[in-house]
């Protein structure tokens, strides 16, 4: 009976598993395999096995390492700032008695917009001479800001746009965690005369720890893969100030047509993201327990 049930279960799962195998597993295996060959779209073929040559080339390439470094800075900046803003907003919303759904709706609006539209919209808003932001700054006597034309400023502009777009994701997850916290420790702390900061520091943060870890990890995984905003807003420039790794790999594949190298870089990125996903999984299990 149990065997029949198991077989039936497999039969029901088979279409989904086959589909996943075709659209997820096959491309990953294919990319892994291709990364060991000198495979270009100009002359596609598996005639030239190069072993770890593509990996060695990527690891020794200054431009690729620079992109990895910029990506790390970007991830740290967006995740850290989004976490701080997200936590403050979530705490405020958690205490809100009325109009919570209205706040939710407003907060979720940016998240519902396609990243390409976000990029185009902000490019127009931040246009140095025709954009509304510099015009508003001009009305109070502030000189036009070179939002995307100076390397440091362009990096922070992209970070800010990403924060605007994604911060509500952080708010929603953290708020869900806060809503689920037990009320008893807070009542006890109040009786003991704990201040609001003490309650936050000694009760909220420790209780929220697993939720915070999950939230940070999910957001970091998304941030590493950021591509659309860079493609629309800066194309990696000015210079190489915003040349994030996903956009770098895309160019290696579709401009240079060098799939062997692009696959090797993509596999390296996949390993990093897979490691973070493993940590995420462990953290989620802790939350469950």
């Amino acid at each position: 009976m149990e065997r029949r049930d198991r077989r039936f279960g497999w039969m029901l799962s088979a279409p989904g598993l086959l589909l996943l195998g075709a659209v997820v597993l096959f491309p990953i295996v294919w990319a892994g395999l291709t990364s060991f060959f000198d495979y270009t779209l100009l002359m596609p073929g598996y005639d030239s096995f190069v072993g770890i040559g593509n990996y060695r080339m990527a690891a020794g390439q200054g431009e690729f390492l620079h992109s990895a470094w910029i990506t790390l800075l970007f991830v740290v900046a967006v995740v850290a700032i989004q976490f701080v803003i997200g936590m403050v907003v979530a705490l405020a919303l958690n205490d809100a008695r009325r109009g919570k759904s209205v706040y939710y709706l407003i907060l979720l609006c940016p998240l519902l917009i396609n990243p390409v539209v976000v990029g185009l919209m902000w490019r127009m808003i931040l246009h140095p001479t025709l954009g509304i932001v510099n015009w508003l700054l001009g009305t109070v006597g502030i000189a036009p800001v070179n939002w995307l034309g100076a390397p440091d400023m362009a990096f922070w502009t992209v970070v800010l746009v990403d924060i605007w777009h994604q911060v509500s994701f952080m708010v929603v997850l953290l708020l869900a965690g806060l809503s689920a916290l037990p009320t008893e420790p807070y009542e006890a702390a109040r009786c003991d005369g704990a201040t609001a900061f003490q309650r936050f520091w000694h009760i909220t943060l420790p209780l929220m720890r697993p939720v915070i870890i999950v939230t940070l990890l999910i957001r970091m995984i998304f941030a590493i893969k950021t591509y659309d905003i860079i493609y629309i807003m800066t194309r990696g420039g000015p210079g190489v100030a915003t040349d994030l790794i996903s956009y770098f790999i895309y160019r290696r594949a579709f401009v240079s047509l060098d799939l062997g190298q692009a696959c090797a870089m993509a596999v390296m990125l996949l390993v990093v993201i897979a490691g973070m996903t493993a940590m995420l999984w462990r953290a989620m299990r802790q939350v469950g327990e």
Partner: protein
Amino acid sequence: MRPHILIPFGAFAMGAGAVQAQSINILMEAVPDTTYVQELLPEFEEATGIDVNLEVVNYAEMHTKLVPQLVSNSGSYSAIVVDFYWVGEFYRAGWMQPLDDRIEADGFDTSVYVPAMMDLVGEVEGTTYMLPFYNYAMGLLYRTDLLEDEANRTAWKEEHGSELRPPETWDEYRDQVAFFTKDGIYGVVNQGLRPDPIAMEWSNYLFAHGGTFMDETWHATFNSDEGVAALKAYIANIDQYGPVGAASFSFDEAFNVFSQGQAYSYITYNFFRAAVDDPSQSSVAGAAEIMGVPGPTPGEGGSLNGAWGWAIPRSSPDPDAAWEFLKWVESPEIAKRRALMGGSPTRLDVFDDAEVIAEYPQTEALKELLLGAHNFPTFTYTPQFVEVLGRELSLAVAGEKSAREALDAAAEEFDALAERDGRRG
């Protein structure tokens, strides 16, 4: 896509003969010249019974969408349009079908094309793979109203001792850029976004300073003194005489600055000339003109050439229908009608047509611009070279490298790409 065989249900039910309808797909860029083709398509479909589906996308998506279709044995696109800097790559990969037999069989006359167009998007190594579609040679858009303004003329004469007029040399243009940077107007607006906007625009500066990209043995020469002077001039224009943020402008943003009357000049694609006169998108309609980018001396031009060509891919599901379309769209009549709608011609007979000149008096200036324009290096790795050049120029503009360092780095990579392409013999 295979030619569709449409069998109307009624005819099938009655056992009557099947009606065959062919359809071809073509991927095209969202530019004015594509719109003109779109408007004329019903005539082709009516005359031949071939349905044409134009898939119109932004430039940035085109290469990405084309390559997977070209690599496969049977792709979706019956005909394609090829930007000049993909030509070497497509040729080396064997993605385009030779057209010579079809041209000969149908007596199609290719001698009417501007020779530089055939060099750029027509023939490769003596074989015809494409028919030139439209040109986008770059020119200098400048404000005629500012040149004609009496106060400006007087001030210029006092300052320079000569008449204020459209610039004949680069030095004269450079002085005008400095002169017009005043009263909330910028002397110039640039398109400094990497990779292709900045690489294409700076190429004009290189030619205008008497520089070249390479010598006959495919060694880079653009890091010469002329090249360095060209890059310094480019940086000065962005930093001193242009609007804040020009280092990140694409061509549409730069054009908006010019068309809103905020800049005296803009080196750009010639198809923007028609847009300047469109009051719905320009506040300087009737107050701007285009000319070839002035060179080091009055006789030498500094413009960069550019063009698209029609081709039939090796993976074309219906090359015969595609050729029917190419013959039609590049026929004298349709080429002329496209030009009358505002298109950028590639055929000499269209440039010289009295009706076209009467409709667009700037046609003669555009022909001169095209005849004096310089070509960008086209080889298998042109897209990569544009990427490298764009990156290094952008680094120099951002102040992260000196002009010499940036150009030396780009030259080194150019030499390596040329070597890899077997250009060194």
